[in-house]
């Protein structure tokens, strides 16, 4: 099969010393980021971009980003299990049983099942990515502007409907991001839009600046705004990292189920690691012969979700690498990274840059193995990161953010934009508007408009072009379903007086 031949070439590239170092660096950084609450992979990649643009080629950069993406999922479980403070939102559900296991003296077993499950799921997801890449790309090469437009609309709708937060607030966040994407020079007509005469806005708002402002600045404001009221966390010692025979037996099936479910959910735009882990937990509780043990230290409640969140990271790379459509804030920042390197995304990415794609996929296998080694024996080291006082950590994050943004264009205006977007991010978060759709909208907005206009120019203004093709029509129908079905369900529930259930 062609994929196996291509992956061999990918390994030949990824095993070069420089790229092995990038994989190790990315994995270590990703784990550290996963351990530290509040800093996610999208922010980490945004902060790393100025470094990578200057120091490494695109292959090395994306190998590092892949390591960060997977590593953050591994690292998030460590703090969840040991101090009941999730380092990543995708590890929130692990706290239900992981911390309980730690309190029952089984912290080592919880960490082991999380790490081994993550390794297994990451490997499965990378294998699935490897197999699916070529068929997806072959299928996508037949897409025209109408199909692309419809798929991007579906992607944004999925993010809105199930990506997190109240759907109407998520919708506003998405639309806000799309409207931010309208700022600058219109590439088709050459017209300046929403620049208010400011030359620095002619190129629009940089996705990296927006990501750092929304995630880093708002996180710092929230972190320092709650510093004095945080309770002291009780760190449980990891202890021996061993699972009993019974624990191995109870973990294997959840690893398989979590991997499959996580990968499928990861492929869906917007339905990221958090949803994957929640659904995996619900599934494990449903199929378990002892559901009453969940919430009290059931190992299945750790094994399934941790496998799912890692598999979803691999799944999320499928639409990004094959269609050029990101499904999450991390994907949007990676898309911005592609654009920063002058690489066009879409189905031609695999054809024009096979070394980049196959090198990245091969390095994910390698990085996954590195992460297992980094996370199990070195867990004590990662936990030490939590001893950094937050009163020092947050100003350092702001410092690094400021330096990172300044190094992009050496523009003070960019820093003021960082400040302004940071305040917007803080306000959105304060009133429970999700931030990831803003970044996704900003990254996809210009592309969405371009495909929209191309479709209409090609059809000479005939709007039926969007429903003329089966793919475009199906995507738009699914979009409508995502919007209407929850409304109908809510209406039926309120009429019948049934309250929605929490998982």
């Amino acid at each position, binding site marked *: 099969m062609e994929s196996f031949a291509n992956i061999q070439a990918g390994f030949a590239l990824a095993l070069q010393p420089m790229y092995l170092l990038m994989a190790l660096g990315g994995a270590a950084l990703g784990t550290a980021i996963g351990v530290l609450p509040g800093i996610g992979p999208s922010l980490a990649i945004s902060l790393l971009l100025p470094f990578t643009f200057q120091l490494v080629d695109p292959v090395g950069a994306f190998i590092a980003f892949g390591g960060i993406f997977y590593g953050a999922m591994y690292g998030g479980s460590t703090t969840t299990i040991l101090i009941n403070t999730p380092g990543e939102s995708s590890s929130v559900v692990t706290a239900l049983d992981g911390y309980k296991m730690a309190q029952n003296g089984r912290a080592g077993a919880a960490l082991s099942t999380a790490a081994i499950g993550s390794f297994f799921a990451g490997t499965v997801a990378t294998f699935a990515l490897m197999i699916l890449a070529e068929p997806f790309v072959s299928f996508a090469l037949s897409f025209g502007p109408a199909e692309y437009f419809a798929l991007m609309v579906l992607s944004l709708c999925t993010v809105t409907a199930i990506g997190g*937060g109240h759907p*109407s607030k998520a919708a506003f966040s998405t639309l806000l991001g*799309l409207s931010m994407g309208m700022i600058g020079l219109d590439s088709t007509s050459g017209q300046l839009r929403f620049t208010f005469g400011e030359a620095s806005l002619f190129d629009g708002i940089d996705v990296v600046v927006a990501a750092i402002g929304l995630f880093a600045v708002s996180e710092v404001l929230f972190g320092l705004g709650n510093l004095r*009221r945080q309770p002291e966390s009780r760190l449980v010692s990891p202890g021996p990292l061993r699972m009993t025979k019974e624990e191995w037996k109870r973990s294997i099936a959840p690893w398989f189920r979590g991997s499959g479910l996580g990968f499928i959910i990861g492929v869906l735009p917007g339905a990221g690691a958090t949803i994957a882990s929640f659904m995996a937990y619900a599934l494990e509780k449903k199929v378990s012969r002892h559901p009453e043990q969940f919430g009290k230290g059931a190992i299945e409640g750790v094994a399934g979700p941790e496998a799912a969140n890692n598999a979803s990271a691999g799944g999320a790379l499928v639409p990004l690498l094959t269609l050029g459509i990101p499904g999450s804030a991390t994907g949007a920042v990676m898309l911005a990274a592609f654009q920063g390197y002058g690489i066009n995304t879409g189905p031609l990415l695999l054809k024009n840059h096979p070394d980049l794609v196959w090198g990245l996929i091969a390095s994910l296998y390698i990085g996954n193995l590195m992460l297992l080694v980094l996370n199990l024996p070195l867990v004590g080291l990662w936990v030490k990161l939590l001893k950094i*006082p937050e*009163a*020092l950590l947050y100003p350092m994050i702001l*410092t690094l953010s400021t330096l990172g943004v300044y190094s992009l264009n050496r523009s003070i205006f960019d820093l003021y934009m960082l400040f302004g977007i940071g305040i917007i991010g803080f306000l959105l978060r304060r009133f429970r508007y999700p931030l990831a759709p803003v970044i996704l909208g900003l990254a996809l907005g210009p592309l969405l408009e371009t495909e929209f206009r191309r479709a209409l120019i090609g059809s000479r203004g005939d709007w039926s072009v969007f429903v003329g093709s089966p793919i475009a029509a199906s995507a738009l129908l699914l979009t409508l379903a995502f919007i209407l079905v929850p409304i109908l369900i809510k209406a039926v529930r309120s009429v019948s007086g049934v309250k929605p259930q929490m998982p």
Partner: protein
Amino acid sequence: MSGYSHVAGRAAELLFTVLLVIFSLAFIWYSTVIPDPPRNVAVGPRTFPFILGGLLLACSSFLAFKQVSQVFSGRVDDPAVEESVPVEDDAEIGDWSGVFVTLGAFLVLLLVLEWLGFLLSFTCFIFFLSTYFVPKKWKVNLLVAPVFATTFYLMFTKLLGVILPNGLLSSII
């Protein structure tokens, strides 16, 4: 926890949604003043922004209406039930003075950055903020702040070759 049940919290959210409506109206207005190209085209530069503006207005109006109806009915939606997946982090703020001090310090940093230079301004910034929140540890902060500021400065100037303003230290560095 529920900031939402508190009158001030609800008033603040209502004000925020009203601001979103105003933003949407402004966006639509600015879309209409974008000049169209002289030739007849199927879709000009204002079409997409106009559509987005309409959707923004519809969405923000719905959110404002929801807030107003909650205020008048006294009913508060439970975010845990309404959200498809919980928004990642706690939305409550325990120390608003800390937020304003941080924002103020950050703004001052940006204003003096080029005059004072990166090294001096970041040293002062890290020391000020860390000491404001943990005054007992001011000696540690005094030691750590210049070390971190210098490390970051060297990382960007020597490793990445980014030229950073040296400000008052221009004659020394």
